[in-house]
């Protein structure tokens, strides 16, 4: 796959992540073949495509979440600020700390709201003012006013949208550079979805965001760049079809398959 060149629109310049020739197997199943992709810094990159095209799998290779699946095997490289995170002496724990993740279904810890945010910094040895940090993170995700009086209540007592914002606060509390979001709104109602989308735009100023979504409108609304994945029907292997600025992908896709998908003729 040829990586589409992105001209001077990336403020601050550079790529936060560079994946080259990524391949993923689950046991004998070739899940994703040969993906090369660059994720621009401080931008929102959306990954779209039909189900089973491997977009979530690729997202999980970006912070070595696939290590937790026994049968998963990854080939190729993902460079984070110049270092291959699949290099032999790289610690996946340190990778995940810098490349955070938000999941499809809100999954707060069954602990208090405060603990949900504070736990990550604490295990990384944060010795500063924890209350201040928690407050800052909760303010950052626009949740502070809603929860400031019940920080000791369970994170699970919140509504779905609030839980997801709590999960985002938890992710940014450990000071990541990149936040990966795996269909963060698929379990939420439209209003909550709107809140999260606004939040994503807001966060893009400080974080590089990669979001997987099955919702094309969402990709069009929030992302700066879009990568379109597809699935090879015979082998059910996923592949990257096309990547570029969101406007161009949606207005004038180069690949006919992209066009088919976007106009609803496929998928």
């Amino acid at each position, binding site marked *: 796959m040829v990586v589409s060149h992105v001209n001077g629109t990336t403020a601050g310049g550079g790529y936060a992540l560079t994946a080259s020739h990524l391949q993923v197997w689950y046991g004998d199943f070739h899940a994703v073949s040969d993906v090369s992709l660059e994720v621009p810094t401080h931008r929102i990159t959306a990954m779209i495509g039909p189900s089973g095209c491997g977009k979530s799998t690729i997202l999980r290779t970006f912070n070595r979440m696939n290590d937790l699946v026994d049968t998963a095997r990854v080939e190729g490289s993902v460079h984070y600020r110049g270092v291959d995170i699949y290099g032999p002496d790289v610690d996946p724990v340190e990778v995940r700390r810098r490349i955070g*993740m938000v999941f499809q279904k809100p999954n707060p810890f069954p602990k208090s709201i405060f603990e949900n945010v504070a736990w990550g910094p604490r*295990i990384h040895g944060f010795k500063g003012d924890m209350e201040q940090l928690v407050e800052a993170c909760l303010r950052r995700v626009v949740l502070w006013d809603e929860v400031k009086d019940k920080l000791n209540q369970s994170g699970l007592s919140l509504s779905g949208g609030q839980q997801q914002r709590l999960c985002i606060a938890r992710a940014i509390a450990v000071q990541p550079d990149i936040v990966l979001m795996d269909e963060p709104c698929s379990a939420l109602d439209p209003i909550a979805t709107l809140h999260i989308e606004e939040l994503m735009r807001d966060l893009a100023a400080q974080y590089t965001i990669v979001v997987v979504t099955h919702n094309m409108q969402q990709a069009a609304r929030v992302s700066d760049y879009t990568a379109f994945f597809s699935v090879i029907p015979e082998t059910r292997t996923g592949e990257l079809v096309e990547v570029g600025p969101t406007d161009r992908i949606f207005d004038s896709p180069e690949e006919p398959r992209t066009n088919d998908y976007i106009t609803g003729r496929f998928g």
Partner: protein
Amino acid sequence: MGVFADKATAGAAGWPEGAEEASHTRRRRSRGWAWRVAIRCSTVFGLLVLTTLLYNVVNSTWGYVVVRDQLSDQLIVLLERSHITHAERRVDALKEVAGNPNAVVVLTPNLVPAVPDGYRTVPIGDQHAKLALIALVSEDNEFLLELDETLLLKLLPEGSRWSDLVSSWPAESVSLVLVVDEDGILSRWAARQDLPTLDSLGAAELLSVLETHLSAGLIRRYGRDEPMAERSRANLLSLVEERVKEPEVLATFNLRESLVQPAEIKAFADVEGAVASFHSWLTPGFLVRPQSANAAISGIRTALLGSLWVIAITICFSVPLGIGAAIYLEEFSTRNWFGRIVETNINNLAGVPSIIYGMLGLVIFVRALTQITSGSLFGTVSADEASGRTILSAGLTLGLLILPVIIINGQEAIRAVPDSLREAAYGVGCTRWQCVRWHVLPMAVPAILTGAILAVSRALGETAPLVVIGAATFISVDPTSPFAKFTVLPIQIYQWTARPQAEFRNIAAAAILVLLALLLVTNATAVLLRNRAESQRM
């Protein structure tokens, strides 16, 4: 088959019609009925078995029992508190009083010998009644001719002098020998006294009772186990019951027999000296008395303490190991060859008969590791006395036995923790152990403990492996360390059940009730824990 429009065609193709169809339906119905009856009966059978099993145990735990004591409680106290010397040979008795004109020998009429020279007989009480006694009094004596039943009864309390009875008699201390061959008479006679009960005697008095009735050699032997003077009152009391009172069970009746066969019980009760009473074999005393060769006074103290010791060791050994292995298999092991081997292996181990574990324990813990399991390595016993048949060996053997169960239950509990929680934890960059420690374990612990308690309750009822590694057949000393010899409740039940005498079946039943109660408590704890965990889950 009425749905077919063209019934003739359908019938032509071989469908039953008319009477044939009706009989087919009938057959189908009756077959269905028979199956349903079979299914219901089987189900009822399951309920029935449990009820019968419990009934059988309860039935043997309570019921009439006919007991004859060698010496009754009252008689023991009587002999202890009075001046009576219980001499079983008339000659001795006569020798004892010879030369003392103010001494008297009291006998039952059938025992009166040819009256020796210089003596005369004084009848006491109605000579036709069962309680008749005859006193042999020296001819030189003046006052004892007046001795009668009322006076004899008054005579008995300690420190009596003849003058205490009748002021005109001499102020000389009483010397009286009572000779009996049938305790029954003396017992009944003693029953008329207002005496304290045997239980209320102090340690010193009990010791004196023992010294009166037991041979010096036997006392020395007991003294070697534990010095007599240092023994507790309860211990001395049980010795008195076992050795002096020596209750002999003539017959036992279970609960059902007690209710429907009163005549037979009566027949047994008519035996001289026998007392029939409704008896509960399960009493508080049964729990705290040590083991004894006599069923009527045997208890399960040693076995109960042994069970608790063994289980404590089992828990300390297998619960941490089992939980650790479960965590390793679920959270750390990748599905490589090692993980797979361990997994298969654990499943196979869970199916190995418990007796094989007993043999393993015998070879490894009892024999190969004697130094450790006997405590000789730690200096508790000398090397040549070292025996590996200890509580420690038993606990470790049972630990190995339930380890696979704990692991399998633990794995299930850990698997029930949703993956989203692990992802959330790893997503903020924690290590595997941090994830386990802070997220997986807190959520899984109630279920893990429930599984572990159930496994431990299995160990509590295990018998065969402990017989193989060599539980002590008879011990009455409380276990005080992991290096002590042991017996446990199930083994006690096994040994008692294997005895031919009926009364041992009764105490086996009582011990079974205790064991079942113990298991009920542990299982109820597990269920409560599970319920609380379920209601607390956020």
